[in-house]
């Protein structure tokens, strides 16, 4: 029993950075921009969050920095794809290469200039990153552990997902945003400020990705700087967008599933003897399956926003 609870708790935690990346990517794709740069944006968020945390000793400032770092990286993407109408795939991939490179470069530089050859977040922050403990609630058996034993990131992630879900489904701006992703010309003709809306959502998405990046360095690597800290989670996040069929709320569930796939190896008896590579492969294989199934069934509401991948120029006819 306690094994199962531990497994669930670990899965939820493990899915959280992916959830951030996925939510960020959903923000991009809802306005019609496929961004293959999530890995890079998360890396920039990670290095920004880490460096600010390292200097200021403040968890909140670190989070804000991660958000801003990610948002700035996405701003670059938006500038190139929205205003300059550059190819989205190529820009995104470049952002990944650039972002990962930049994070590693800055990290290496800081490492060379650190006193004892390691970079570690100060104790003050690490303390705040520990699991939130809510007096009374966290102590309830089973339930307390299942619901109230996580780092702040988990709660931020779930709340963000719910807010985004509400935003896209229920609000006026959300409807406008979805219209842009489906048919920017129609949105434009309806009087929606397409460019402004794209910029805002892309930057918002980048910011959310950035927080996911901060998670990788603060929680997964326990506040110690290492190169390639995001380690491919950004790509899994892109996969999860498909798995969640572009729904922020379903992404919560999806991130737990993907988290579980990342954790299950530690909870399987050795005698079963499945290679860890199989667990690593599963998220991608399942995503592939979802991709194929949705394209075969052609459920239009559950597909990628129709204008995704193409840029919009008003005077094109």
């Amino acid at each position, binding site marked *: 029993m306690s094994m199962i609870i531990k497994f669930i708790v670990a899965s939820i935690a493990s899915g959280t950075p992916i959830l951030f990346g996925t939510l960020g990517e959903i923000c991009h794709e809802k306005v019609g921009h*496929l961004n*293959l740069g999530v890995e890079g944006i998360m890396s920039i968020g990670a290095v920004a969050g880490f460096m600010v945390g390292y200097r200021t000793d403040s968890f909140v400032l670190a989070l804000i920095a991660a958000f801003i770092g990610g948002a700035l990286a996405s701003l*670059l993407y938006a*500038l*190139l794809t929205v*205003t*300059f*109408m*550059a*190819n989205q*795939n*190529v*820009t995104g*991939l*470049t*952002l*990944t*290469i*650039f*972002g*990962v*490179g*930049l*994070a*590693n*470069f800055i*990290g*290496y*530089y800081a490492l*060379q200039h650190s006193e004892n050859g390691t970079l570690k977040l100060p104790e003050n922050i690490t303390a705040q990153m520990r699991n939130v403990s809510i007096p009374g609630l966290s102590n309830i058996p089973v339930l307390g552990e299942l619901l109230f034993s996580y780092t702040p990131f988990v709660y931020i992630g779930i709340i963000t997902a719910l807010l985004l879900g509400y935003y896209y489904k229920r609000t006026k701006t959300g409807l406008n945003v979805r219209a842009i992703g489906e048919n920017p010309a129609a949105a434009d003709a309806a009087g929606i400020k397409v460019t402004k809306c794209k910029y805002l959502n892309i930057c918002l998405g980048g910011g959310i990705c950035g927080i996911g990046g901060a998670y990788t360095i603060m929680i997964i690597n326990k506040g110690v700087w290492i*190169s390639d800290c995001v380690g*491919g989670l950004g*790509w899994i996040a*892109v*996969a999860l967008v*498909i798995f969640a069929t572009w729904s922020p709320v379903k992404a919560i569930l999806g991130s737990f599933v993907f988290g579980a796939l990342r954790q299950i190896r530690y909870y399987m008896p050795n005698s079963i003897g499945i*290679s*860890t*590579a*199989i667990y*690593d*492969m599963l998220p*991608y*294989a399942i*995503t*592939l399956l979802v*991709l*194929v199934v949705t*394209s*075969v069934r052609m459920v239009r509401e559950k597909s*990628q926003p129709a204008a995704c*991948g193409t840029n919009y*120029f008003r*005077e*094109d006819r």
Partner: protein
Amino acid sequence: MENVKQKSSREALLHIIKRQEMGKRQATALRFGALLLALIAGGVFILCMGHSPFGVYRTMVSGAFRSKMAVQATVRNMIPLLLTSLSVTLAFKMRFWNIGAEGQMIMGAVFASYFGLFHSDWPHAVLIPVMLLAGIVGGGLFGLIPALFKTKFGTNETLFTLMLNYIALYLVVYLEDRPWRDPSSPGYAKFAIFGNNAKLSKVFGVQSGWIIALVMLVAVAVYMKYTKHGYEISVVGESEATARYAGMNVKKIVLRTMFLSGAVSGIAGMVQASGTTGTLSQGIANGVGFTAIIVAWLGRLNPVSIFIITFLFAVMEKGSSVVRSTFNLSEAFASVLQGIILFFVLGCEFFIRYRIVARKRGGKTEQ
């Protein structure tokens, strides 16, 4: 006509309009301008890090050529990048977004490695062609899968090929962990090294893969420019309806081209395994398949330009490892610089296709 009145200045100041075709020379000049600006931007970045940009750039270039060994390493870096860039070029020309060169390269390496690991007793003259063929088949089949789904169900190929990259990667991890694990190696799982018969011999001190890469460069260039198949690829890329109208079998062309695209990446995998790393490994592709997309785009799908850009990128990669030892800056500087260059060039493409005009008061348009 009535007088044109002065208007309220609520108008947007800048406005984007489409250009008519820009001259080739002017466009090339603009692209070189962008490259220069990118290098300046990179220089400012170096300056912020407290180093001299000129020093770093000079070291980078001289580092790639400072010794015979350095030159050989630079060339070695070029081989897989050139091959995968050619591979994605074939697909991109058809407007098929093959983001999967990475995975196709890995699968080529896997197929080739089967013979390299388990049939290294075969004579060199037999084994190498077999491995090459296996690489072609492995990469080709892996390129064929997304094409099949695309033609059959319209499945999005960008996302499909992206997923396949990771499936290929973890397949290698699995093989290393289980069936192909080197039993003689204690501790960590790893692949055995290929027997000597399975290794590409060296020519001028570099693995002979460079010859294969050059042959492929010419072959792909000729294929795209002068053959019926190449013509078909261009037509399908421009308009599928026209291709069908002209009696082309679009599905067949897509499948064939994606097989070839995958196959060229597969060759890259085989060459890398047999020539450079000497066996299969998890890092066999190491992101080359992604960089290839940038190279192909920068080279505007022109094989000759791609060759030049591959060379530049290889110099940056090799040079930045020297920069690391000289200036104590991370090798990641190569990635940063490549990113900056592409950002600038992507930005400059905009100015080739569009013009920004400022509107003066009164509604008149001035350039």
